[in-house]
């Protein structure tokens, strides 16, 4: 059997199981008498051992096996665990995590776990394995909901008008065949526009599953119908159960996504053709393709969605180690880890988050003595949270430390020429921009943890490259909050198309607040630069034509103006004409040297002509 095919799967799944071990160890450390975490670590170790053995990785298998044996003993005698034992377990999990890629690369034979195995031997109260491989089975299945009959789960297609009414029709169709009870959510929800189209009910009747499904589907716009019990039920109010998923090689999804990208481009062209045709048939087909394509895109994006805990899970451990190293007391909390975002984005935000968390522990949270002096709780707090809204995810790192010293940053920035001399105040926004200058750091000495002056610069450019933005709020003595706002997904975004000269440019709608007519009468001066007056607000003005150096004269008089907004920052972008809105496929971009740094990528428009994508964050 060719095992290399399974290597990638082994690697990802191992990471998951070892990750949950590490997580459980943290819980265990907080309460040495707790039994739940022991069971979790035991089970994770056992699963990992089985996989490693199947791959023929003997060294990994042995370490996992010996650890499991020890855990089995501890499990039968809760309370026998010591801090030393937990430290050993932490190190074992680390060693296994590090060993996985090496083994996959063919180096299992070179892995040397002898010191850890020796420590394990010493730690084992009973040296003989107990021989019990039984895995404790956690009772995950909830009691059956009230009412009998078969469970039917229905999803109304997204994008359908009045999903609630559709849901009610589906129920009526089922009622025509038998008795329906236990409708979830309650039928009254169907009257609300916010209803998300997912419902379930119990059905009692003689009809076969197939005819029941056919009946429900005849309600129209039904995305899926499933008859049968669920394996895991998410109950509101309970901690959200981490869902099991089947594993698909990400490259498959990427390939599919690229194909859908092509389809979106072709669809754009088709819609243009349909708009000028007289054939109602062609119009109808174009409209249908339009609908199917956007549903398909939605589905694939959904398939790429990954809960953020896959990245967040490693941070509790990191913060714990850091705070120990710096002799600080830090309570680390994570919120919203069940929120999902595109795998491609998630993979990129680990490093920026590490920077922010390190900064929070190192520079944010004060020493215990300092905190006492300031009448603050001895233990500092760091909160990492993810919150989702319609088109973006906000990831926040909040600490209750000393805040950023504005005056110190100001003095240094003026001294180094980042700010004009005479500047006396800094808004949070300006503060962030100064901190984001390459090489800017106020740390007196370079520590092992942070303060090399590469952090904030790297964070800002990474987040911007992903089409996101960073915001900062800080108050002396109260702490700092960094918020990264990231798009839910890459690849396909809605954009406003604008024309300047002979070229069209795409402006992602996420950065567009509104469009207005530029009225030359309403121009004022802001710090010597042209500013557009919009409802008593002065907006810095960027004339795209001039910025691009387009030759020729601008149309005289009023011109369409796009109001860009990123976080709190706004500016007015003057263009020659607005062309319309379109879904565009973002192509990765290596900007040629010397190109204006205001573009994030390129796209092919419906008619096959390429267009550059304007980066709102670079302009405001």
């Amino acid at each position, binding site marked *: 059997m060719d095992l290399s095919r399974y290597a990638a799967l082994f690697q990802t799944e191992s990471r998951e199981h070892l990750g949950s071990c590490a997580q459980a160890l943290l819980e265990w450390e907080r309460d040495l008498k707790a039994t739940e975490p022991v069971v979790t670590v035991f089970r994770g170790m056992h699963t990992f051992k089985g996989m490693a053995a199947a791959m023929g990785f003997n060294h990994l298998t042995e370490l996992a096996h010996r650890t499991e044996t020890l855990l089995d003993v501890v499990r039968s005698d809760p309370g026998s665990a010591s801090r030393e034992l937990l430290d050993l377990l932490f190190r074992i999990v680390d060693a296994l995590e590090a060993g996985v890629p090496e083994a996959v690369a063919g180096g299992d034979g070179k892995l040397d776990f002898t010191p850890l195995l020796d420590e394990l031997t010493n730690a084992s109260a009973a040296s003989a394995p107990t021989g019990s491989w039984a895995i404790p089975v956690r009772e995950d299945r909830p009691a059956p909901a009230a009412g009998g009959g078969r469970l039917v789960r229905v999803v109304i297609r997204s994008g359908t008008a009045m999903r609630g009414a559709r849901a009610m*029709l589906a129920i*009526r169709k089922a009622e025509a065949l038998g008795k329906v009870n236990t409708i979830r959510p309650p039928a009254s929800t*169907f009257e609300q526009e916010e209803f998300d189209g997912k419902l379930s009910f119990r059905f009692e009747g003689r009809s076969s599953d197939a005819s029941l499904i056919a009946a429900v589907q*005849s309600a*129209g716009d039904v995305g899926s119908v499933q008859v049968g019990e669920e394996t895991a039920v998410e109950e509101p109010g309970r901690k959200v159960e981490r869902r099991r998923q089947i594993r698909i090689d990400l490259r498959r999804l990427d390939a599919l996504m690229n194909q859908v990208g092509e389809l979106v481009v072709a669809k754009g062209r088709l819609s243009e053709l349909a708009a000028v045709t007289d054939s109602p048939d062609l119009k*109808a087909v174009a409209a*249908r393709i339009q609908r199917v394509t956007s549903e398909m895109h939605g589905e694939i994006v959904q398939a790429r969605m990954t809960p953020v805990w896959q990245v967040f899970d490693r941070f509790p451990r990191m913060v714990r180690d850091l705070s120990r190293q710096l002799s600080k007391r830090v309570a680390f909390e994570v919120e919203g880890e069940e929120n999902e975002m595109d795998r491609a984005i998630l993979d990129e935000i680990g490093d920026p988050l590490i920077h922010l968390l390190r900064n929070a522990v190192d520079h944010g949270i004060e020493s215990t003595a300092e905190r006492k002096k300031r009448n603050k709780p001895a233990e500092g707090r760091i909160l990492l949270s993810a919150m989702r809204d319609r088109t973006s995810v906000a990831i926040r790192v909040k600490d209750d430390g000393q805040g950023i010293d504005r005056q110190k940053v100001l003095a240094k920035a003026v001294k180094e020429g980042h700010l004009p001399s005479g500047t006396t105040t800094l808004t949070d926004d300006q503060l962030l921009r100064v901190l984001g200058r390459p090489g800017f750091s106020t740390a007196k000495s370079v520590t092992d943890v942070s303060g090399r002056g590469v952090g904030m610069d790297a964070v800002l450019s990474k987040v911007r490259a992903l089409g996101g933005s960073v915001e900062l709020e800080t108050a002396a003595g109260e702490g700092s909050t960094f918020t990264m706002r990231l798009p839910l997904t890459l690849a396909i975004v809605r954009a406003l198309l604008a024309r300047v000269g002979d070229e069209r440019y795409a402006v992602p709608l996420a950065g567009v607040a509104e469009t207005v007519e530029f009225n030359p009468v309403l121009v004022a001066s802001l710090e010597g630069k042209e500013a557009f007056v919009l409802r008593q607000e002065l907006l810095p003005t960027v004339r795209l034509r001039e910025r691009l150096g387009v030759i020729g004269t601008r149309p005289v008089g009023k011109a369409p103006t796009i109001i860009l907004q990123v976080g709190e920052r706004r500016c007015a972008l003057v263009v020659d004409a607005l062309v319309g809105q379109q879904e565009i496929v973002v192509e990765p971009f290596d900007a040629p040297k010397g190109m204006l740094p205001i573009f994030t990528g390129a796209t092919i428009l419906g008619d096959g002509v390429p267009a550059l994508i304007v980066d709102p964050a670079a302009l405001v």
Partner: protein
Amino acid sequence: MSHTVLVCDDAIFMRTMISDILAQAGFEVVGEAETGREAVERYRKLKPDLVTMDIVMPDMGGIDAVREICKEDPDAKILMCSAMGQQALVVEAIQAGAKDFVVKPFQPSRVLEAVQRVLG
């Protein structure tokens, strides 16, 4: 034989549009009604295969008309014609016995899909 249809809407514009869509697809529009009361009376007389029913009409609304018609003929095939934001009313109409619905603005393809579903 083509299916017969009764079109109920208080706006001539909407009645014309729906009639056109259905006539082009080969249906025979045998009657029109401007109010809920008219709808109930014409249904009794014409016994059409299909009824399209506006929700908001003077002198008995569409939902009450659905209730009346279904009381006399539980198998009546009624398609609700609604506007965005009327979800609660559509749900009520379905509970009253309407078999499907379409949402304005009408796309002919969507209307015909719904009609096909109703006529099974």
